[in-house]
């Protein structure tokens, strides 16, 4: 019996096809087949346009990383492709909150990409904080979001307060160059939102620290989507300010500056916070937009080679949709996604706490953001410089700040018409 068994085994071995010599291939470590990310964006509703930019930017970043095989995760010793689950929050904070809840509890995502607009980000960031899921956004900059002591929320947009501080620092440089008077009388008008309050806080802080340089002669909030600015502008006129510092959304900027021009007002410096160089503003305001200063998170004119490369690939990718990289939305969306990828790679794991720790220690150089580096402060928000621009009469936009990106000299004071 034993002999028969030996013969059968011998025959079976000799008749079997010649197999390759066994090599010591490592068994793949068990783990997920993909990295699941989630986001809820305003694809419809009032913020549909920025929402579209963020969507396309996220998709471009994911396409790029997947073309390279995905993100290398050390824990599994292999690259994992990225898949994004995207929902439409309809520009509604309540919907946004429930969708982030769904992404975490039902879709079981590993990490989250953020939504857009301060109001929505403020509302839905309580969800990842509650469940302990890493969340990175480039769409909500107000410090009210980050000053709540949250641990899981990160942002690639510097604060609105910093926007105001940057503007004020730039005004100091102009004063020292003898271009603006000391003290500079400021007419400060701001939209009555968390965004506007942050801006006001920055201007006030700098004014209180420099009473010899600045004097606020008017400090008035206005309602978002106002129907008429004449009463407010009449108060501004009566205040006899040297500079108009306003923080407004695009529609309010257009209406306010139209009425400002209609009333024949003049100030040595005019800025509408983050607004200023938009194509829509030029179309709506015509020549009145000349010399308006803008202070933004990003500009396609930044003289970094990686910015030019990003603009080229984004516009090529979405040529059919007619999307351009002239605004900061796609740039910050793209960089937000890349920051999260980098954090996952640095963490070497899909463990939420390890990804969070990698975000805390983030130091991504060669970035397309102003200052070319992504890093986060203790409150989770980046603290990189703003880019300050001025609209020139020939239709161009020059960069006046930060020093490593200057493309032209500012015209200060604005020439009277």
């Amino acid at each position: 019996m034993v002999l028969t068994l030996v013969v059968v085994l011998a025959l079976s071995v000799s008749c079997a096809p010649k197999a390759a010599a066994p090599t010591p291939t490592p068994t793949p470590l068990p783990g997920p087949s993909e990295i699941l990310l989630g986001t809820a964006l305003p694809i419809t509703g009032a913020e549909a346009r920025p929402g579209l930019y963020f969507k396309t930017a996220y998709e471009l970043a994911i396409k790029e990383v997947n073309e390279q095989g995905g993100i290398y995760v050390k824990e599994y010793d292999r690259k994992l492709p990225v898949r994004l689950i995207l929902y439409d929050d309809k520009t509604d904070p309540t919907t946004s909150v429930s969708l982030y809840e769904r992404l975490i509890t039902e879709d079981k995502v590993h990490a989250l990409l953020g939504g857009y607009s301060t109001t929505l980000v403020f509302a839905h960031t309580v969800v990842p904080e509650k469940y302990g899921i890493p969340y990175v956004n480039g769409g909500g900059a107000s410090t009210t979001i980050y000053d709540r002591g949250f641990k899981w929320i990160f942002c690639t947009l510097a604060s609105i307060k910093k926007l105001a501080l940057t503007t004020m620092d730039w005004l100091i440089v102009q004063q020292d160059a003898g271009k603006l008077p000391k003290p500079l009388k400021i007419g400060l008008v701001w939209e009555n939102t968390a965004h506007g309050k942050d801006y006001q806080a920055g201007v006030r802080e700098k004014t209180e620290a420099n009473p010899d340089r600045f004097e606020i002669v008017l400090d008035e909030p206005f309602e978002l989507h106002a129907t008429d600015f004449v009463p407010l502008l009449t108060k501004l006129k009566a205040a006899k300010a040297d500079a108009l510092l306003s923080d407004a959304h695009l529609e309010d900027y257009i209406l306010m500056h139209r009425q400002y021009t209609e009333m024949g007002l003049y100030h040595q410096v005019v800025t509408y916070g983050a607004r200023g160089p938009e194509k829509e503003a030029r179309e709506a305001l015509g020549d009145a937009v000349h010399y308006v200063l803008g202070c933004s998170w990003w500009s396609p004119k930044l003289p970094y080679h990686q910015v030019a490369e990003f603009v080229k690939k984004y516009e090529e990718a979405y040529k059919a949709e007619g999307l351009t990289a002239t605004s900061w939305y796609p740039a910050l969306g793209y960089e937000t996604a890349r920051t999260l990828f980098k954090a996952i790679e640095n963490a070497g794991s899909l463990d939420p706490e390890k990804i969070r720790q990698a975000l805390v220690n983030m130091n991504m150089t060669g970035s397309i953001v102003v200052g070319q580096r992504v890093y986060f402060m203790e409150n989770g928000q980046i603290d990189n410089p703003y880019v300050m621009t001025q609209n020139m009469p020939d239709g161009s936009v020059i960069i006046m700040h930060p020093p490593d990106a200057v493309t032209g000299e500012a015209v200060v004071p604005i020439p009277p018409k």
Partner: protein
Amino acid sequence: LIATDILTITINAILVGGLYATMSYGLALIYGVMKIINLAHAGLMMLGAYVTFWLFRAFGLNPLLAPLVVVPLFFLGGMALQGSLVRRVMKAPPISSLLLLFGVWLILQNVAYLIWTGDTRSILTPYTYASVQVGGISISVIRSIVFLVAVLSLFLLQQFLTRTYVGKAIRAIAQDSEATKLVGVNVGRISMIAFGLGVALASLAGSLMSLLYAFNPDFGRTHLLKSFCIIVLGGLESFVGVAMGALLLALAEAWSVMVMKPALQDLISFVVLVVVLVVMPGGLAGLVRRQ
């Protein structure tokens, strides 16, 4: 503020009152005749603005002449909307018409997103910044034109409602629909015309507003809320009352800025709404009638 500043604010408020009146006539007409709140009013104003923008961009049509095309177009569209959808819910509880017209508003918004995208649009003309200086006061030419259109609309509406058969029938339906039917008026047809007229007036407002404001498919929400306040203040069914209400609200908002934060301007509208509903439910028109 000196006297010139106060006068500037007051004159501008009167001009804004003209705009407020124009955007409220349509809402008042439809409520008066059919006792339904046209929640699609904001969407229709938005669409009126976009069609004006499109006529301006595609055909170079002067936006001041655009209402000559926009208003008849929307009148027909309004009649079709009433005949096909609104008619079906007229006898239903008010919530049905509210939901239906809210749905229409959402559809209009999404159609606008599809056609014109969510980009902010505006119309810039050689007269956008035109203003007249009178004794140190700057008066906007466009806002003055909008005011004149509001006055002209009020005059024509009054003439139409008091001098024509259809106009008298509309007033009769507003007073007593059943009695009007008994005397042989085709209430269905007249309601359709009234709804078309209300939609046409919304489009007129939107067309004029495109000259003043930047807009996107979400445009009109703030204006709709103000229109509600105005028609309640004016007395819901009276156009003279609506004009008076619009003027009063615009003045109250503007003058409030002299003593309060401009951010509280909208508060004025809603305080007015609550006070009028509680103290004088008939609005200004009711107050005048009682006198």
